[in-house]
């Protein structure tokens, strides 16, 4: 009697389930995973860039003779160039960090 009731309740609880195969759901999972990966990589890149800038700034303060004005200009231009090329990505990363 209880087994019978349990199987009926079980069938009711399983009723209206999503389809057995649902490619759309799988695609959403993969999309989300890629977004997560992208976010992680962007954060790592951003952290790396910040570290390089920081180290450079500290080095400039501690040993200004080692880093000549020319070297600083080249590095600055490289950072600015990279920033300009990936401006859209940087905006996306900053937005994702705010969320």
């Amino acid at each position: 009697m209880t087994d019978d009731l349990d199987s009926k309740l079980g069938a009711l609880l399983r009723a209206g389930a999503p389809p057995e195969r649902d490619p759309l759901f799988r695609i959403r999972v993969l999309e989300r995973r890629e977004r997560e990966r992208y976010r992680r990589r962007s954060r790592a890149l951003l952290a790396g860039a910040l570290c390089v800038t920081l180290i450079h700034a500290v080095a400039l303060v501690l040993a200004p003779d080692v880093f000549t004005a020319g070297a600083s200009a080249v590095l600055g231009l490289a950072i600015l160039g990279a920033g300009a090329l990936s401006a859209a990505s940087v905006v996306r990363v900053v937005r994702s960090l705010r969320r």
Partner: protein
Amino acid sequence: MSPEDAALLAAVCEGSERAFNELVDRHQQAVRQFVRRVVGPDDADDVAQETFLAAWSQARSFRGGSTVRSWLFGIAWRKAKDLQRVGLRRGRRDTAWLAEANVSAQADIGATEYALAQALSTLSIDQRAALMLCLAYGMTNEEAAEALHMPLGTVKSHVLRGRERLRDVLGDET
């Protein structure tokens, strides 16, 4: 545990995309239905997607003491509880289930499904989870207790009370 599932998970640990796709295809229906009944339809797919993302990144944490499906239910349960905590903090989750049940009724999903949604709305999230694992997916009380990280006695009591409540509310429907 099914040997196919074990092989799939081992391949997922090695980073196989194909194995992960197959794992999602195999278990998405059960995981999504479990989450739907536990947290309601609105957040269900979101929680289910989070579950599979966690499965991808934590595949190595699977110890093999249970089935892969049971392990996935355990992850889904933790995600559902996280969602409940956030919801309670926002102070909206308590009434969400009844509202969803009413919406479902308006969408003409059928009298039995409506009665079931109403009955489930009277149960706690813990009771709904225990009922789903034991009644809908045929897990033993011990397996459910392990997946839900609950004491065995608690699961037994949840299933007993949940079953009684459903029987009372559904009445002749069953």
